[in-house]
């Protein structure tokens, strides 16, 4: 069980956190069960999918074709060093590209959303929801400690998580 105070991963059944002494037995934070679930669980429980990536100089036609073939809503744009420099999403296709279809050969870097907001696997699902709400995003890249992309989550992943939790709650009610 993760300590809500310091994040230390205690053995299930511990009365107090081994690291910081926070009582774990009497911990009964407020809020509904679903609210608790999104605050308590980290993004890793969503099992972020490996991201599909593209270079910023690749033609936008390639990006759109890849998204269509792979049935995904976005691609992460990585530079030669593998650093995340942008995200190219369905919204970018509609908002930045659809006005001039003759630009299909132009580089995807000109149409992407640069410096996208990111999350880490240890952030809470609530934080991911907040980031999506704040920026109006449907996808968030998941990065490691060196800011390297390791996965992607979508609002659909969170919706699935909530549906499963909701069904569990109803079955135990």
């Amino acid at each position, binding site marked *: 069980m993760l300590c809500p*105070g310091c994040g230390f991963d205690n053995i299930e059944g511990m009365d107090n956190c081994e690291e910081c002494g926070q009582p774990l037995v009497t911990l009964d934070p407020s809020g509904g069960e679903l609210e608790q679930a999104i605050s308590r669980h980290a993004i890793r429980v969503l099992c972020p999918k490996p991201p599909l990536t593209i270079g910023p100089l690749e033609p936008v036609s390639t990006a759109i074709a890849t998204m269509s073939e792979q049935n995904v809503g976005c691609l992460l744009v990585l530079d030669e060093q593998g650093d995340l420099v942008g995200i190219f999403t369905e919204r970018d296709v509609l908002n930045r590209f659809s006005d001039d279809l003759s630009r299909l050969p132009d580089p995807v870097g000109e149409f992407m959303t640069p410096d996208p907001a990111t999350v880490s696997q240890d952030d809470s699902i609530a934080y991911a929801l907040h980031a999506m709400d704040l920026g109006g995003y449907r996808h968030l890249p998941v990065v490691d400690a060196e800011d390297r992309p390791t996965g992607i989550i979508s609002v659909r992943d969170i919706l699935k998580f909530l549906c499963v939790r909701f069904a569990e709650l109803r079955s135990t009610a």
Partner: protein
Amino acid sequence: MTTELPVLTPKDFGSDQELRWCPRCGDYSILAQFKKLLPTLGIPKEDFMVVSGIGCSSRFPYYVDTYGFHSIHGRAPAIATGIKGVRPDLQVWVITGDGDGLSIGGNHLMHAIRRNVNLKIILFNNQIYGLTKGQYSPTSPVGKRTKSTPLGSIDNPLSPLSVAIGSEATFVARSVDVDTKHLSKILERAAHHQGTAFIEVYQDCNVFNSGAFYYASKKGIKEENIVYLEHGKPLIFGTDRDKGIRVNEGNRPEVVKLGNGITEDDLLFHDEEAEEPSLAFMLGRMRHPEFPEPVGVLRSVERPAYDVALDEQVTESIERKGPGDLEELFCSGDTWTVT
């Protein structure tokens, strides 16, 4: 006849109130260290007072079984000053946040500190307004996108340490919520200080500003990004403890690598007792990523406490003039009848 005081434990300071912080919030850790500290101070339970303003952190008084006051936004230092004025025997803790303490109550905080009222002030700094769901605060960094800064903050942030040192605080320290052993030591130091003890705690708001202090709290990373201050010792940091802080010819701090002719003797030696606050101010301005950020006690000096001086004035006046009469005071001097 003497009365033996009961031996208290952290559990004795736990209240029956429902905790209303988000799971995994950094506040839990601070609360846990606080409850561990109180029974070690040898102070009767009824002689503690916890005063707060408004914000997530300001729910603190509900969660410790002491006297407490969840007061007005930003006004905790003023209310606590009043409490110390009439009850100097109490140990009074002020719990505030970066919004409550530095925006709404910046003025009150500054004056409590410059008066050196015998208060222990813990400022939970999470660089966001958490209770109101994610607006930027006075400590949010430039460029921070929030609900109230959708294009990124263009405000220069306040440094809580600079505010405290600029107000001539006699005790200034910083710690990190999940660095529990360090936080315990800092709280203990503050508890024993005579005068205003100001502690900034880096606190993670895992819902609205997750990871703001990742660099200073994550094991394996923080070693490169923070420097632990120890009185009389050189400022050394790094995973291999191979880096240090030196003051260059321009009297500015710089990061140096030990070796190649640079020894520990060349480094800046910390002096928390320096009467002149310049060193503490300089340390407080060292910010990530240019510098490792200092944690520990930046300044600890002695100066008469406000409440002690006030108590002396009152005692002396009573000895000289008698206890006084409130009714007589109301009717003395210039009075008017309003019709």
